[in-house]
């Protein structure tokens, strides 16, 4: 039971991380103008 719960937490965390990474990548690719500032664009 403890191992199953641990496995579930690991899988859920990995899924959340994947969703976050995809969201960050797509947001920047589709509309970089929303997020840019002068220092980082330089």
């Amino acid at each position, binding site marked *: 039971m403890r191992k199953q719960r641990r496995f579930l937490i690991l899988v859920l965390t990995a899924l959340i991380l994947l969703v*976050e*990474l995809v969201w960050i990548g797509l947001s920047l690719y589709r509309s970089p*103008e929303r997020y*840019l*500032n002068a220092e980082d*664009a330089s």
Partner: protein
Amino acid sequence: MILAQQMQQEGSLLSSNWYYSTELRVLSPNLLWALLFNLSGDWAFIRALGTVCMACLMLTSYFVLVRRARLGVTGFALSPLLLAPFSPVFFPYAVLLPYYSVPVIIGFLTVACCVQSEKSGWPFRLLVCVLNLFFGMGGVRGLLTLHLPMLFVLAGNFLKRENSLRALKKREYGLALLPVVSFLLGFVIHQLVLAPRYHLLGMSQVVTALPTAQQLTTRLLDIVAYFGFYPSNTVASPEGLSSGCALALTLLVAMGAIFVIRRRDGNPAGRWITEYLLAAVAVSLLSFLFLSMYAPRYYIPSLAFCVPVLAVAFRGLGADSRLRQRAFIVAVVGCFCVTTVTGGWYQAHRAENLEMKKVATLLQAQGYDLGYASQWNGNVLTELTNGEVRCVPVTNFDTLEKQQWLTDTGDPTQKYKGRVYLILTPAEAAGEGAALAAKAQANGKLLYQTEAYLAYGFDSVESLKKLLPAQSE
């Protein structure tokens, strides 16, 4: 990105044709962008892919810390917080625009190397030392954000070793000091070799100053703002709710840190990380109070350690009381959910450069590829046009004097014969650029006007310069 493209074209790790800011970008995302420029010429693709790579590097460094500090599945489960938009400071400056992810990555790895210095293998220790050497070659800031707090933790451990949780052996002190020594060596190289060779603004404009009560309040409140506090909003709004949760999160982190410090039989590595967080926040706060250079984002390298500290506190609470542990994690997760949803909505609706996109499209369509604007607008314009529309950043609109900060050292307008543009914001057109704007308007040079920008077009650099107030007098 502009510097990265220049580095790729020059085939160098540092550009001698660039005006650097307070630090040389020895270790920065620009290295990655420059590499990615070999794969593609699409700037949006490079930024998106590079940012995801930097986020993965940050996660990897965090996992190394979690593993070395034995934070187990709790530490892993809290890792999404590093990429979540809960913070209006961390998310934009360390994730979306990952310049500040570099000190966070080096911080996680250095602390991971030091928490159990004797158990670190030499390859890992060497990697951390090399990273710190390069970090030091960039400038002095890492000393304040990373190594001074680390030295305080080591000194504290040395002074109270009699009653310490786990006193370090002499060899361990030596090993823990290796990254600091590497950093200092890097800084010596920076001072003696790199700083004289490259165009660097450096810390020459930073002065010591006595803080006012207002500054003290601002610096302290910015710690709460880091967790998602939005000032000047009604309580019954998402921002108001997020602000309440940010206050609660600040308290939870503080309570968790105090709990870990007071426990004598807990995880030694976890206690080390917690002591480091407190020392880093204290050193940051003091430096922000007594030095003239400050922005809320300077807290990022220190406050990033809140995530592992929450994991340490959670594990420590579990040994005492399951009920307290569950209440703690429910409160932490609940508050983060509220601040993340609010922050995510806020980030998805940011519209700072939407008007600039329209201007960029127009200039591209009309064939303009060089012109003038302030630093704040020009760099963004160049990136939005895939580097096709270049800009000379201007510091004085009466003389079109070039700003010598975060731009290349050359003057592309010298032999340029084509049409040029000029972009002003309404504030610039009414203020420092009023005379030039009036003359350009009177000569029918206005190309396009939005709420945020006025774009003017000229047949040549000379025809623009004829309208300068300094020329016409």
